């Protein structure tokens, strides 16, 4: 290799030789490269600062500004007499702020030994919060008792990032009171989070899951407050930028009457069923209960898994609101619809007598009246009072199913009543078109016979029966049943009143008067099926009903021998006083047996509690009682 070392390199003019030209060329390329790189940097800066600038400004704001939310106390629930039904109690939560905790593991270790909590589950809780901003607190334990709270506070120095925060906790001051009406709160789920506009709820918030808590969520929840603080990278608060106090949720006044509700619940104790008591003129629900019930206080801060499991696996389904979710044939209660239809359609004169030999023949089929020996010759009044099946089989045949359907629908059966509670069932009123559509078969005449006495396809809820009776009580309209009387918002002194919503009933007053008379007979006539309901000095009009669980043909006829689950469902619905009805009570007892004897006394107690306080412990009106066989209908 021939090196140029021999030359005096000090004076080599590089532009004179090839190596120098090469170098100069490369230097030129390097400058172009640099220019290109600088342009590239500027382009990137333009992209970050101008094109994406807004996003980064937001990110930097989020970085330094930390918003701590202050939960808004949920609105109270009052009765119209200003009794507190649901309120809030303070509850203390143990929280960890991941961003302020340099050594999460160590802190969790200390907490677990201090409070005897499982470290793994604590870790899981913290890990489960990944993806949320690290400054948002993770709740380690809810409802910290006093002694644990003091333990944590005395060791606060070692527990970086741990804080105890006060949270309002829902408290149902009356215990089990109307749990199915109030519903309960639960931790918000993903779907609910997505449903509401951002900012209203946050993961971990409680939201009304059921009942009035759900219906009134928008009123009750109030508005969260918050403190906006500027923090440095270490989470140290530099200054408070803004503070917004939480707005207490609006209070709700419900129509429930505490006294009536209490009696209802007392009556339902150890029974399975539902009771609805309404003011027929306004549609206000005075009492609504379903049994068995559950303790809504369990849900107050989010129910734990074991408790929830216990509730959901209970064979009696305590979470089911039987008042609006049970769908059963109304039995003889439905005869009132058939009677009204017959009178309005003039298919029979009320004085026309029909002979009941104890059965009714249609073609080759024999339909039995519940009374084996038959009722003899009965007119409509007697047929209602004594609940004669044969009479209504005959009338039903004259009417045809579609005309029965028309009147049943007119009285609100077969459709939701529109109460504020979610999950209401609509029941079912069959018609010829319905059967064709559902089963693809034509309607059989014999089926009308069953429908006329409230058996067969027909299904109703206790609440529907109550509203239907409100219609009978009013004569001219059916009110929408409602639980909420008004919503009061303290902040703007705004009050939302809920008006009675009426639906007109195109039924002649004559028909109504006749029916009311007959209903009174059911209770007050010695031959009536509900004489046990009588209260001295009150006129009560009611109707018993029995929903067959198993066809009587296959089961031992002796009442006591029938196993509970094969016993019939008992219905009783009544109004009082008949002249100017103030209350309508609908009672449904699952496997209760006969309407008159099982459901009747429950209704009687409710009526007495509302109209004749305090309840007189009068002896059973046995003097008026007809023989057992007479008062028990099938």
């Amino acid at each position, binding site marked *: *290799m021939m090196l140029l070392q021999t030359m005096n390199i000090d004076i080599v003019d590089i532009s004179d030789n090839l190596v120098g030209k090469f170098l100069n060329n490369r230097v030129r390329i390097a400058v172009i490269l640099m220019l290109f790189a600088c342009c590239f940097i500027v382009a990137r800066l333009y992209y970050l600062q101008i094109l994406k600038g807004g996003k980064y400004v937001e990110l930097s704001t989020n970085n330094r500004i930390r918003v701590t939310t202050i939960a808004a106390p949920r609105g109270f629930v009052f009765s119209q007499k200003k009794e507190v039904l649901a309120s809030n109690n303070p509850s203390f939560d143990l929280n960890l702020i991941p961003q302020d905790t340099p050594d999460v593991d160590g802190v969790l270790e200390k907490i677990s030994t201090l409070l005897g909590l499982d470290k793994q589950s604590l870790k899981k809780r913290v890990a489960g919060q990944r993806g949320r901003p690290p400054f948002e607190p993770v709740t380690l334990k809810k409802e910290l008792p006093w002694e644990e709270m003091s333990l944590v506070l005395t060791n606060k120095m070692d527990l970086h990032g741990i804080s105890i925060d006060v949270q309002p906790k829902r408290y149902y001051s009356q215990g089990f009171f109307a749990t199915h009406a109030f519903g309960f709160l639960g931790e918000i789920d993903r779907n609910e989070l997505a449903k509401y506009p951002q900012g209203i709820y946050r993961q971990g918030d409680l939201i009304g899951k059921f009942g009035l808590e759900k219906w009134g969520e928008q009123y009750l929840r109030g508005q969260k407050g918050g403190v906006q603080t500027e923090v440095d990278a270490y989470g140290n608060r530099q200054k408070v930028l803004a503070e917004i106090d939480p707005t207490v949720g609006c209070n709700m006044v419900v129509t429930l009457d505490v006294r009536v509700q209490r009696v209802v619940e007392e009556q339902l104790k150890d029974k399975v069923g539902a009771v609805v008591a309404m003011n027929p003129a306004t549609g206000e629900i005075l009492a609504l209960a379903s049994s068995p019930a559950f303790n809504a206080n369990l849900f107050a801060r989010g129910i734990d898994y074991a408790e929830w499991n216990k509730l959901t696996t209970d064979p009696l389904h305590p979470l089911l609101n039987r008042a609006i979710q049970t769908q059963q044939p109304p039995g003889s209660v439905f005869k009132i619809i058939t009677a009204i239809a017959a009178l309005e359609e003039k298919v029979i004169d009320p004085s026309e007598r029909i002979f009941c030999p104890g059965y009714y023949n249609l073609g080759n089929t024999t339909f039995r009246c519940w009374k084996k020996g038959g009722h003899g010759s009965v007119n409509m009044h007697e047929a209602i009072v004594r609940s004669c099946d044969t009479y209504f089989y005959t009338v039903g045949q004259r009417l045809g199913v579609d005309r029965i359907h028309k009147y049943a629908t007119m009285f609100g059966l077969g459709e939701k009543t529109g109460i504020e509670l979610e999950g209401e069932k609509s029941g079912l009123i069959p018609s010829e078109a319905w059967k064709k559509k559902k089963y693809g078969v034509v309607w059989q005449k014999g089926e009308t016979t069953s429908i006329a006495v409230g058996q067969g396809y027909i299904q109703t809820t206790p609440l529907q029966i109550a509203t239907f009776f409100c219609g009978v009580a009013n004569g001219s309209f059916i009110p929408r049943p409602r639980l909420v009387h008004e919503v009061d918002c303290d902040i703007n002194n705004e009050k939302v009143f809920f008006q009675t919503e009426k639906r007109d009933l195109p039924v002649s007053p004559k028909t109504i008067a006749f029916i009311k008379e007959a209903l009174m007979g059911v209770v007050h006539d010695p031959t009536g099926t509900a004489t046990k309901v009588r209260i001295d000095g009150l006129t009560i009009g009611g109707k018993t009903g029995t929903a067959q669980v198993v066809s009587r043909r296959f089961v031992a006829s002796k009442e006591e021998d029938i196993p509970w689950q094969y016993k019939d469902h008992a219905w009783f619905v009544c109004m009082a006083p008949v002249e100017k009805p103030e209350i309508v009570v609908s009672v449904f007892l699952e496997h209760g047996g006969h309407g008159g004897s099982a459901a009747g006394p429950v209704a009687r107690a409710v009526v007495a509690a509302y109209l004749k306080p305090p309840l007189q412990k009068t002896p059973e009106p046995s003097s008026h009682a007809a023989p057992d066989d007479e008062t028990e209908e099938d």
Partner: protein
Amino acid sequence: MFDRKLISHFDFTLFFAVMLICALGILNLCSICSSEENIAPLYYKQISWILIGLFFLLIIININYVTIIRYGYYFHAVALFLVLLVLFIGKTKLGSQRWLALGPLSLQPSELIKITFMLALSKFFAENLSHRPYNLQDLVAPLLLLLITFFPIYVQPDLGTAGIICLIFFSYLFFININKKMFYPFLGLCLASLPCVWFVLKDYQKQRILVFLDPDLDPLHAGYQLIQSKIAVGSGGFFGKGFKMGTQSQLRFLPEQHTDFVFSVWSEEWGLAGCCLVVFLYFIFFYRGMRISYNCKNFYGSYFAASISFFFFMQFLINICMTIGLFPVVGVTLPFFSYGGSSVISCMVGLGILLSISMRISK
């Protein structure tokens, strides 16, 4: 000794560009210091470093660069010795041994060795000129030089400087004429060995590369710097948040804000406009440096001027790309702008030699 001609060739444009960069750097440090009351104002120290650096620069421009470069091997040997010394008696900061305690001051010889490495390579190439392209056997000596320089720094560990050392070497390969037949297989070999480098890397270094590819991988730890830096730069907008108004830096969300991430602080507070000014000044600086190389009639000067300009450019490019999310976070500072005594002094020494070349351009 004093020559009018020397003054007339002094590259004032370059010098003032660099001085302006220094001034902006100090201004930037003022902004950061406001939030750290407990630490003695950093910009005071930086000013003194710059003054010390200028003092060295003043001495150096009076010395003929040819002399300096001719002693290149010796200078490099001394720097290498200091680097090795650091390994044994150095101070440990942030997990790596880079500092040499000199009374109250601490010296970072790895900053100095970048300059001496260029001196040594310039000497070698200027003295081993060849009319035909270099073959691999001609480059054995520089390669050995690279290895003995690279390893002690790598062991410290100082990934940034070690990388810069390699890049300096490669920049020489760009400026010299190498045999293409030999160069491409060599380049191929280097590229092929890159995946092997992965296994040599320490865990935290791997982590840095991984989070560079996906910062959200570990947003609270390894990815934190990158994310916060991008937020700082991006939130600057066109005119920035204003002096001392940068929330990312003032509230200390930005890590390493006086060294590696000074540019993020600057861009948050001065926005695109301020950034363009800085980038423009740097470009003037590089361009003038390259121009000195182009005009220099001497291989010593020409090689050194080209390589040191390119070296400053690489530092600049890597540092800025790091802050704007285009390069993994490696400890490379922004020359003249970042805080750092050793960095400022060694950069001033390098600048001194560059200016010395400019003054004696006609020789």
